[in-house]
């Protein structure tokens, strides 16, 4: 037996033994994911059990090095783990911005002390992180941010306001872009700092969205202390880290474009019916669904191709620049098609006839995908300039 095959056998046996039955059911939307933190939101006690058992093996972040709380697995082993988890429909044990965004940036830019301090707590789900990027006057033009950090020796004094801070009201710490210097160009003088959301002077106010949920907050800083030991990278050089982290955020968001388990076409056939040739009974809807499914297939092939090219040492090709734009636009198309296929069943807030409101909430929430993390229009600007080499106006 190859080492990888043995790893698969052991993993399968361990998962069978340790994954609680209740964690082998599909999650109902974003709110049903386990995010950890000092005061975790727990819908089911098994969530924490499952997370703790996986964390003990380093499998909440299987690809991170062991010294930082990871599993130390190589790419093939991680793939096997994912396959074995999918085999029993195991939920992801822990979903957090610490894992998907801050972690990769810390691994890349953090000092050894910073990594040892923060990464294991992310891996164990002890600290929940939020991202302080956008400001009321710095949205698509993020680099014009103005939140001020004043040098006070061993710490900075932070004053300003952030907006669209995801889950700020539920998070323990923040990774935040602040302005330490105003004298140069707007991309210079930005610093990347971490601080505790329980610090005096931090207040948050949830923003209610069109979907009825409040994943985002306005966040205010009034003379908040941020210690310099938690400055990542050099002072004034935070923009490079911000951009690096944004690529991870965009990857995460473009993942929403992946094909769902049950195709929209099949869902529509169940809801509307088909003719004697097997074609969906409504030909106009059928065409739009076919276009969507065709693009989903081609998008998945593109993600696979870019991955294979990178593995073959050909670098991250220009194709990767389209992921955020295309993935989020695909996800919006899919959500509109869910509505078209299911009709009014997809427009209620709750109740069994209305699928507990999941479809309607996901639909409304999807509208934000092409805004957050860089709008579709900003992505198209980036492709125009950096890939096609078209000049500024």
């Amino acid at each position, binding site marked *: 037996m190859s080492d990888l095959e043995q790893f698969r056998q052991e993993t399968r046996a361990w998962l069978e033994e340790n994954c609680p039955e209740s964690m082998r059911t599909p999650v109902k939307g974003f709110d049903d994911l386990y995010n950890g933190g000092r005061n975790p939101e727990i819908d089911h006690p098994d969530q924490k059990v499952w997370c703790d058992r996986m964390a003990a093996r380093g499998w909440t972040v299987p690809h991170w090095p062991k010294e930082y709380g990871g599993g130390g697995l190589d790419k093939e082993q991680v793939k096997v783990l994912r396959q074995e988890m999918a085999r029993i429909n195991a939920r992801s044990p822990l979903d957090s911005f610490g894992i998907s965004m801050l972690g990769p940036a810390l691994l890349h830019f953090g000092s050894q002390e910073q990594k040892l301090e923060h990464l294991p707590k992310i891996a164990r789900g002890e600290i929940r992180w939020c991202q302080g990027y956008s400001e009321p006057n710095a949205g698509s033009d993020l680099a014009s941010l103005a939140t001020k950090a004043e040098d006070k020796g061993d710490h900075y004094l932070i004053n300003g306001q952030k907006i669209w801070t995801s889950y700020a009201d539920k998070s323990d710490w923040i990774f935040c872009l602040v302005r330490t210097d105003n004298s140069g160009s707007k991309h210079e003088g930005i610093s990347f700092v971490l601080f505790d959301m329980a610090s005096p002077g931090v207040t948050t106010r949830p923003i209610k969205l069109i979907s009825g949920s409040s994943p985002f907050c306005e966040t205010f800083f009034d003379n908040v202390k941020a210690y310099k030991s938690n400055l990542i990278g050099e002072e004034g050089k935070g923009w490079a880290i911000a951009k690096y982290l944004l690529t991870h955020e965009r990857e995460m968001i473009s993942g929403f474009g992946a094909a769902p388990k049950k*195709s929209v*076409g*099949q869902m*529509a*056939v169940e809801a509307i019916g*088909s003719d004697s*040739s*097997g*074609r*969906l009974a409504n030909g106009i809807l*059928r*065409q739009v*669904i*076919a*276009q969507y*499914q*065709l*693009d989903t*297939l*081609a*998008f998945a*092939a*593109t993600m*696979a*191709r870019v991955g*294979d*090219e990178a*593995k*073959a040492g*050909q670098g991250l090709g*220009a*194709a990767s620049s*389209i992921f955020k*734009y*295309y993935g989020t636009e695909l996800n919006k198309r899919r959500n509109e098609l869910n509505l078209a296929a299911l009709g009014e069943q997809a427009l209620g807030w709750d109740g069994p006839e209305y699928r507990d409101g999941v479809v309607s909430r996901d639909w409304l929430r999807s509208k934000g995908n092409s805004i957050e993390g860089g709008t579709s*229009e900003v*992505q*198209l*600007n980036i*492709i*125009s*300039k950096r*890939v*096609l*080499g*078209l*000049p*500024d*106006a």
Partner: protein
Amino acid sequence: MALVLTEEQVMLKESAAGFLAEKATVAHLRKLRDSDNAQGFDSDVWAEMAAMGWAGIAIPEEFGGLGYGYTGLGLVLEQAGRNLSASPLQSTVLIAATLISELGNSEQKGRLLPAIAAGEQLITLALQERGHHAPQQTATSARRDGDDFVISGSKLMVLDAASANQFIVIARTGGDVGQQQGLSALLVDAATAGLSVERREMVDSRNVGALVLDKVRVPAANLLGAEGDAWGGLSRTLDIANIGLAAELLGLSVEAFERTVTYLKERKQFGKVIGSFQGLQHRAAELFAELELARSIVLQALHAIDDGEQELALLASAAKAKLCEVAQRASNEAIQMHGGIGMTDEYEIGFFIKRARVAQHTFGDYNYHLDRFALLSGF
């Protein structure tokens, strides 16, 4: 198979790019058109392609080919698309050789495939009878008469008909019009009595033929595959043909796009290059994204042929439908973004939109393949 090119494939692609950019460009196509060349391609250039082995690129080595598989052939077709290179690569190499491999017995394969691989024989498929691709609607009949078949009917859109040595005629030996069952494939020599071939010039300046078969008599030994049972092999051949055409359309679309982006960086209006205007930038960026998707689905479909994947029909229709859509958009945007100069015959971009449409419609257009993709996806 990983979705990347091997070193061997990259070399093949580069050598095809170099050769075609020198010997079979849009300027050469214009010359063929303006000299009213009867066959629609340059025989000397084709002889050079054959000498490099391209006529047998996907044919297994045991039959005198290079054995590079369809991924290899697809890479050459992509470069042919970039340069709008006219040659029998589609009619003979992509389609006829595949149909012979699919349906022929060992004697037929042993005789015909090496002749194709050597560039000695041009063979082409005679299938379509009306304005649209609809293989089940074949009405041309083949009646058994002793040791012969007698074929009657007519065919349209027969690629490279004027220069073909032989035709593979799809005719009905049984079943009713509209049925898959009852179709047979018969080899018909171009010199056979009762066969008339008329050249038709298409908007892409290539030649197709209109065939009339008036009681054409061929020996039963000319049957490829079992009588009345051609559908399986024909259908798989058409899938492969459409993936090959998708590869050609990919090259064509990328080239039209790159020429357009170059133009956007040169043309000045209002005191600025027009490529600095966001109205054009976003359209170009969206098209770039679509071209990346197109490249991925073509590569996946080419690999699926070589890997013998079960889902070939679905991937073939996916690749062809996607490339029809992208080629249409890329060629339309190419004309629009070039403005008035794009409308002139003197400028080359117009050749791209014309070849694009013909290739899109060959063996099923966007509507045909999107419908088939949906059916195969269960709706």
